[in-house]
């Protein structure tokens, strides 16, 4: 067996009440590209950030090449040969490409106390050429580059210390085809140089193609490790979800049931950087699924529908033709939006649960000029009980709640507002199974009440299990419309995605 590079033993990590990682162990050998897969919120990003020194562990032990390893920040990690590439923007806009690559590592270019920019830029040019980003100018300010080029700079930063362990955390979906090729080429380079790669993704096909072995995580717990040809998509998915795709988990019925002739919401010919001529109609009481790979443009379409992002052309309107331009107007017209990044956009963390819930419905609570606090508290407590949000009352701050309970607060917000149309972006992302089930039942009850839901999701079982109609998106276009029926299975849907 070749030498083990990374060894993790019963690692624990929890944020307040959420137990992100529990008793997790893992080994990655030399020259191995090891995948790490799991549903959103299964703890894979938390684990990788701990290995990269971005977060500290509550308990457990890490070893690199056999020696104990406890990084406090990215510098300690890169000294031990561990580097990380994340999904969000990892470069600072106001400084140059070279400065980003060598951030906090500028000492090595110091000659007589002065940074020698010539060698620094030369070195940056070299590493950029090595990773396939030779078209980038080391002196350019990062803000002037497009998203993909900025990601290449991050890859260069990670590859510069020719890492023993390169961690890629869901980066691929921020890259277009060319960028992805560069990434795979670098993974191969690390592999040949005797290093190892921890590749985190939830895109099945990419994982099977790139990784030698894969570990599956579910709700912070180690599930299994598959190697070589054991890695089959269906098997992986079952391990990921942890149960056969139980029938009653989602909707019991198999026919599309919605009021086909009353349209409540219409999007015509929406064009934007990642949406090309998207048009569809939403009917009363319908759950419309919007599926596809992470970067197929569905998330951006969701934001455009709610008026959050601008669009080149096209029109978003209700049945009676009133156009939706801004979120404030949308909310007034009864449209709700659940963002996929929950902590920063869907809910205000440093704010009490009650205030979060009543926020959109404040105008409706008003009796004349006066807005009784009693009414607010009643509405808040009423929805906290209805959704059984585990907390010590509606005065408590949202930041103290678990992921599932936070999502309940977001849902309570729009239920309190009695919004007729809900745009849900990855509604069950990073949520434990128990709450997922409640959310699905809630969606069903909303559907019965005649409300309509646009559900944007990257999880196949959820899309197939819940939607009356699925619009599969690929390369920013609606590729196929699939009606709900018992024969629909994942392979059929996936083929329109890839």
């Amino acid at each position: 067996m070749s030498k083990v590079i990374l060894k993790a033993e019963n690692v624990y990590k929890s944020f307040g009440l959420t137990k992100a990682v529990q008793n997790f162990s893992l080994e990655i050998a030399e020259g191995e590209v090891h995948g790490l897969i799991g549903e959103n919120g299964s703890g894979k990003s938390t684990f990788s950030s701990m290995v990269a020194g971005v977060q500290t562990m509550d308990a457990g032990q890490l070893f690199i090449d056999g020696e104990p390893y406890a990084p406090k920040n990215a510098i300690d990690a890169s000294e031990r040969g561990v580097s990380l590439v994340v999904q969000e923007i990892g470069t600072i806009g106001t400084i140059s490409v070279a400065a980003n690559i060598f951030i906090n590592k500028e000492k090595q270019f110091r000659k007589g106390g002065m940074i020698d920019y010539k060698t620094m830029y030369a070195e940056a040019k070299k590493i950029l050429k090595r990773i396939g980003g030779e078209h980038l100018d080391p002196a350019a300010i990062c803000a002037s580059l497009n998203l993909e080029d900025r990601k290449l700079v991050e890859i260069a930063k990670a590859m510069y210390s020719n890492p023993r362990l390169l961690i890629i955390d869901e980066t691929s979906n921020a890259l277009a085809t060319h960028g992805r090729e560069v990434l795979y080429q670098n993974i191969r380079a690390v592999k040949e140089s005797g290093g190892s790669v921890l590749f985190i993704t939830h895109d099945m096909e990419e994982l099977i193609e790139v990784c030698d072995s894969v570990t599956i995580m579910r709700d912070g717990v180690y599930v299994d490790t598959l190697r070589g040809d054991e890695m089959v998509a269906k098997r992986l998915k079952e391990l990921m979800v942890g149960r056969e795709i139980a029938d009653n988990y989602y909707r019991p019925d198999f026919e599309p049931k919605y009021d086909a002739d009353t349209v409540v919401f219409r999007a015509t010919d929406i064009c934007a950087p990642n949406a090309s001529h998207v048009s569809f109609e939403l009917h009363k009481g319908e759950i419309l699924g919007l599926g596809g790979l992470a970067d197929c443009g569905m998330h951006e379409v969701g934001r455009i529908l709610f008026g959050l992002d601008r669009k080149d052309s096209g029109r978003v309107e209700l049945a009676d033709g009133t156009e939706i331009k801004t979120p404030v107007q949308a909310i007034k017209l009864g449209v709700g939006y659940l963002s996929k990044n929950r902590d920063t956009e869907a809910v205000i963390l440093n704010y009490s649960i009650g205030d979060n819930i009543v926020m959109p419905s404040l105008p409706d609570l008003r009796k004349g000029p006066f807005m009784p606090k009693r009414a607010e508290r009643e509405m808040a407590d009423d929805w906290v009980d209805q959704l059984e949000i585990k907390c010590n009352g509606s005065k408590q701050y949202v930041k103290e709640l678990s992921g599932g309970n936070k999502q309940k607060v977001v849902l309570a917000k729009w239920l309190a507002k009695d919004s007729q149309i809900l745009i849900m972006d990855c509604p069950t992302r990073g949520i434990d199974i128990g709450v997922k089930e409640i959310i699905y039942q809630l969606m069903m009850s909303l559907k019965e009440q005649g409300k309509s839901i646009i559900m944007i999701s990257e999880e196949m079982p959820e899309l197939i299990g819940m939607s009356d109609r699925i619009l599969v998106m690929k390369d920013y276009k609606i590729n196929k419309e699939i009606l709900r029926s018992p024969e629909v299975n994942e392979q059929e849907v996936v083929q329109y995605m890839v």
Partner: protein
Amino acid sequence: MKAKVIGQKIVATLIIPCAVYLLFLILRPQVFGQTSLIWTLFNQSIANIIMAWGLSFEMTAGNMDMSVGAEMILGSLVGCMFAKTLGIPGIILGALLVALIIGVLKSVLSALINMKTMIISIAYTLILGSVGYLVVKGESVIITSDQTTLGKFPYTLIILVVAGIVMYVLDRFSVFGAHCRALGGNENLAVVAGIKKKTVETKAIFICSIYAALSAIIYLSRGAGTAAQTGLSSMSTVFGAMTGVFIAMILVKYINMTVGIVVGVVSMNIITIGLIALNMPSSMKDSVNGGFLLLLMIINDIIQKREADKLYRAASMTRITEEQAVAAE
């Protein structure tokens, strides 16, 4: 490509001061025509330039310290007291002593409080202003004219050039300067990359205090005397230097901070002299500077919006071209 960039740099550097100078040259040719005016301008701007250089590190890292004016005046007062016994070395010793003591106190306090430094610096201004008053019991203190050599030609130039070079090196070539810019750009990413925020801030505070001491020496030597400024009145001295840094921050895409600050401060002093030459009440210079700064920021904001728009359009174009490519197959 290289020539164009250098050209852009020169234009960006000189456009503001020359435009202002030309304006007053047209209005008052005999005053602004004489070369000696350049010399007067230079002398008047030194103290503010040096203070602005000291301030630039803290402001690039995202903190605004309003108490540097009071610190500088305290330095000049203590320098004046020491000058009575030790002569010129006394001035230098007094100013530097104040710089060290205040530097240590401020950095210790900044470690204890993680609040916007602007609010805390108002409390510092109050304290330093009154301490200055108690040090000299309110009398205005002077130094004999032979002790003012540091305010005279060769020395002011030497101090300016040395301070300028040190600032240029620290800003462009030092690890500390890179860390300040990183913290100012995106604090979370910088901290994740392992940059210690508190250590960088402490260094910035010390450098700012040292530069405030230098500017105190020149302020004292030029005026051959100084007086305590109690309450918040010392803020007007620091605002002049801050406006210089703001202007430099806007021009930082084209020219480095060191030259940017010189441009900012000198342009403001041209306006002051211009107003006096036009016999207009020189309190107008506040509104000219304020309007000037507001205009610059609004223009800067519009430029940034236009650039964001350009990036957005480019992204749409790539999507459309990719689409056509797929359609063509």
